[in-house]
């Protein structure tokens, strides 16, 4: 084990920090969030198109932050982090996607639309 053998500040994970890439991640994510906020507060698009657009914004912002901030790439020191993330992403999708799909069906089949039902504004 390399306790005290080398200067921890020379460790590649310290050295990979970079002001410009952090700044890039910040700017991209901020602009995307700004765009989403303007679109939503102005309601300029049809609801479905708006939803797709802000989903796109969220996806791009997350990817930008992953790449520029969290260094998710295939460099030697981050490959395992990337592998772990790639393994997790389908699970996030499954957890959320299959649950939503299942419940969209379940709601249709178990919640009859009765007059006077709460939430039927």
């Amino acid at each position, binding site marked *: 084990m390399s306790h005290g053998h080398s200067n921890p*500040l020379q460790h590649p*994970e310290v050295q990979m920090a970079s*002001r410009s890439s952090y700044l890039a991640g910040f700017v991209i994510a901020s602009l995307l*969030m700004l765009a989403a906020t303007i679109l939503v507060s102005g309601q300029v698009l049809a609801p479905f198109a708006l939803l797709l657009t*802000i*989903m796109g914004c969220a996806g791009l912002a997350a990817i930008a932050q992953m790449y520029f*901030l969290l260094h998710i790439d295939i460099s030697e020191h981050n490959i395992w*982090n990337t592998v772990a993330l790639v393994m997790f992403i389908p699970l996030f999708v499954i957890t959320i996607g299959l649950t*939503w799909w299942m419940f969209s069906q379940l709601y249709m089949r178990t919640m009859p639309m009765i007059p006077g039902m709460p939430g*039927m504004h």
Partner: protein
Amino acid sequence: MSSAHDKPVNPDQVVLWSDDYEGHDVISTRTFGFWMYILSDGMLFATLFAAYGVLSYSHSYYTGPTPAQFVAPWYTFIQTMALFLSVLAYGFSMASMKTGSKAGVINGMIASMVLGGVFLGLNIHDVLRMISMGITPEVSGGLSAFYALTQVHAAHIFVGLIWMLVMLYQILKKGFTEDVVGRLISLRMFWQFQAVMWVFIYVFVYLWGYMS
């Protein structure tokens, strides 16, 4: 693999013990493990998102208000900027660490803490405003899910701030030892990950909720 059995082995050339094995890279091992914790934390958020999706139908809000009635997008956008700036400040602090600049690291971290505090303060203010309007988690399943998702994120921010406080003390006390550096990198990932999660919460809970 069966071929390995068949090859004749020269006893003089075979290496049985590795005498130049220095062991593992302590910092990388630590940060990799922490990254896996972060991903499992992501799974926690994914589950909350799944619950939120199921509980965001119109009948889920019972007779109470829906997010469209209480979300203020620009207010939350300011929160977003506070968090993003805090993450940026922490990033700059880590960039200062490359050259071993203690002052740079500490200044960046203090800036990050202040901005994180602003985020948390805005969040608390928002929650108090909602509670004063009678919009509490007890009102409906939809609001329960709304609070769960947003406040679990806020709790992460709170933990992050305490952690930063501890790291400030450790940097001053011990300097950049292997342990401290490893923790700073873990904290960087933790903090940046909160920004990633916030993107989803902001867009899918606040903005989408405001839309529908």
